């Protein structure tokens, strides 16, 4: 199987090696076409975003307005902070020039003169590696003003790196733009969408690192070729990041639609100690978990996972064996979202804290059976009631873990049930009794 994003070529991060292997020929080819042709090719290829939402990349590009006096921007999302997701760092390290080439093509297609590559602040090493590749590209005329000479075109674009500073929410596209603008990373209310009103109020497209790295191959080999790899509705390869209780954790580039069991047992070396699988999170910690006995025949692509009630996310597969304390795992996940909630929307800001408190109570053995329903209720009240998808990201694992592992969680609650009414006035508010009749 041919690899697109991370081919097995030694020293591919060096510009000379990249050039020897056909590097920057796709950009040259693209500059000879009309921008609309490129957008059309990418649309037909079926390339979908690799950052979590799996939205059609070509369609996203086509939203950029043609007639506008404002400058247009491209942002590359390399914030990669979703727990269980560690794929983009491989691209920065092993194939940065293909990302740069993808940026050139995308910039040309949407008419962007400036690109900001947003990389999470903790990735010091990978920022340096990418900046090295970028400065080589500038030197060789593959970016900046020199492009006109190198490619013999009128088009040129600038690429800048913007370093994050430890906020998960900046992976959300509108928070990412606020962060580049030098503000707190608060997500914006949509609409208006970035293509109309993005960076500094100008038309902006935001794509994930892996998505853009696929583009040069699509231009060079054609959309027909790409659309035939893996699952037809979610074609191409995916960087599956497998972590947790497996013998060989790591990133594996394979066609989309791989069987989950195939990934775990044939590529990641099986479960450590030959134990059974209790739980799997298929796409990073915010995706609904699956039971170990639910994964037979489940394929890893957006549509197949949707059918079994979860989502592809970033294809970061977390494997938990039968001895895992799921209550503690869920409490840890809840802690993460509590920590990362930006605090703009009340349901998320308060709800994440409540879920954490309840889960900590359960983990300490102090939870009651009512807490399980309370968790589902709190989670359901966050979902759909927030500006951005962090609400769903926090609620999904809780709601689905508690419902799908109800038996497991019920074993962990206190046996005796004490009926408590914390606040009688509050609890009677919807009754016909006048408040004065409530007695202790």
């Amino acid at each position, binding site marked *: 199987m041919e690899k697109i994003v991370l081919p097995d070529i030694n020293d591919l991060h060096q510009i000379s090696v990249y050039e020897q292997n056909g590097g920057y020929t796709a950009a040259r080819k693209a500059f000879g076409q009309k921008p609309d042709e490129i957008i059309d090719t990418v649309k037909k290829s079926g390339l979908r975003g690799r950052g979590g939402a799996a939205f059609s990349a070509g369609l996203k590009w086509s939203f950029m307005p043609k007639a506008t006096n404002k400058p247009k921007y491209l942002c590359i999302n390399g914030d990669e902070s979703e727990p269980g997701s560690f794929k983009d760092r491989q691209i920065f390290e092993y194939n940065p020039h293909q990302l740069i080439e993808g940026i050139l093509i995308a910039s040309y297609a949407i008419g962007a003169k400036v690109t900001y590559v947003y990389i999470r602040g903790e990735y010091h090493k990978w920022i340096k590696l990418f900046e090295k590749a970028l400065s080589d590209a500038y030197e060789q005329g593959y970016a900046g003003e020199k492009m006109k000479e190198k490619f013999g075109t009128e088009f040129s674009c600038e690429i800048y790196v913007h370093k994050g500073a430890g906020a998960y929410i900046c992976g959300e596209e509108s928070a990412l733009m606020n962060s580049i603008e030098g503000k707190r990373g608060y997500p914006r209310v949509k609409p208006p969408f970035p293509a109309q009103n993005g960076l500094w109020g100008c038309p902006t497209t935001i794509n994930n690192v892996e998505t853009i790295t696929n583009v040069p191959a699509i231009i060079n080999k054609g959309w027909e070729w790409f659309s035939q790899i893996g699952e037809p509705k979610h074609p191409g390869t995916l960087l599956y990041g497998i972590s947790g209780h497996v013998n060989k954790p790591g*990133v594996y580039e394979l066609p989309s639609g791989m069987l989950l069991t195939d990934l775990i047992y044939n590529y990641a070396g099986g479960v450590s100690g030959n134990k059974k699988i209790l739980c799997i999170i298929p796409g990073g910690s915010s995706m609904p978990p699956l039971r170990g006995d639910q994964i037979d025949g489940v394929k890893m692509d957006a549509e197949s996972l949707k059918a079994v009630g979860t989502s592809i996310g970033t294809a970061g597969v977390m494997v938990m064996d039968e001895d895992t304390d799921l209550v503690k795992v869920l409490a840890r996940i809840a802690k993460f979202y509590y920590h990362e909630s930006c605090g703009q929307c009340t349901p998320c800001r308060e709800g994440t804290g409540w879920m954490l408190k309840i889960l900590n109570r359960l983990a300490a053995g102090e939870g009651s059976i009512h807490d399980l329903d309370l968790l589902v209720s709190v989670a359901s009240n966050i979902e759909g009631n927030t500006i951005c998808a962090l609400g769903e990201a926090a609620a999904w694992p809780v709601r689905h873990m508690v419902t799908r592992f109800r038996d497991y969680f019920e074993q962990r609650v206190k046996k005796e049930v004490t009926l408590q009414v914390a606040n009688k006035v509050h609890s009677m508010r919807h009754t016909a009794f006048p408040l004065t009749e409530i007695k202790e």
Partner: protein
Amino acid sequence: MEFKFTEENLTKIEGILKKYPEKKAAVMPVLYIAQEQNGWISQEVMKEVAALLDMHSDEVLGVVTFYTMYHQKPMGKYHLQVCTNVSCMLRGAYSIYNHVKDKLKIENGGITEDAVFSLEEVECMGSCGTAPMIAVNEDFFENLDEQKVDQIIESFKDRN
């Protein structure tokens, strides 16, 4: 204590400003430079950054408090960041974290008396495939066990 950027850093900042259409957008990279020079972000640093970028110092404060990587107090010379998120947790991150706590006798956010080490429990660092991990300042140490953690801490003690 008054804070002024060094000439060298002012030149760097000039280069950064060229990347953005607005001065304010440079606040994050400029804060990084300030932190590198000063060790942490003090009130004086924020005032200076604000003056340089035509911002209000409260706006800068808003940015500093939002992002966890800007330190609002002095940190140890070697800042240990232990990830305890799920992928690391499944591979023993909490025993590593507790081991570091016991060894250095500091809590989360704490700093050793000699100011050589400080400790922070951090969220996912993207080392899920090579878990568990510790980052010391900017460098990642991965695939750890308690023995390796001891070696790392000793090596930094020696370096000091």
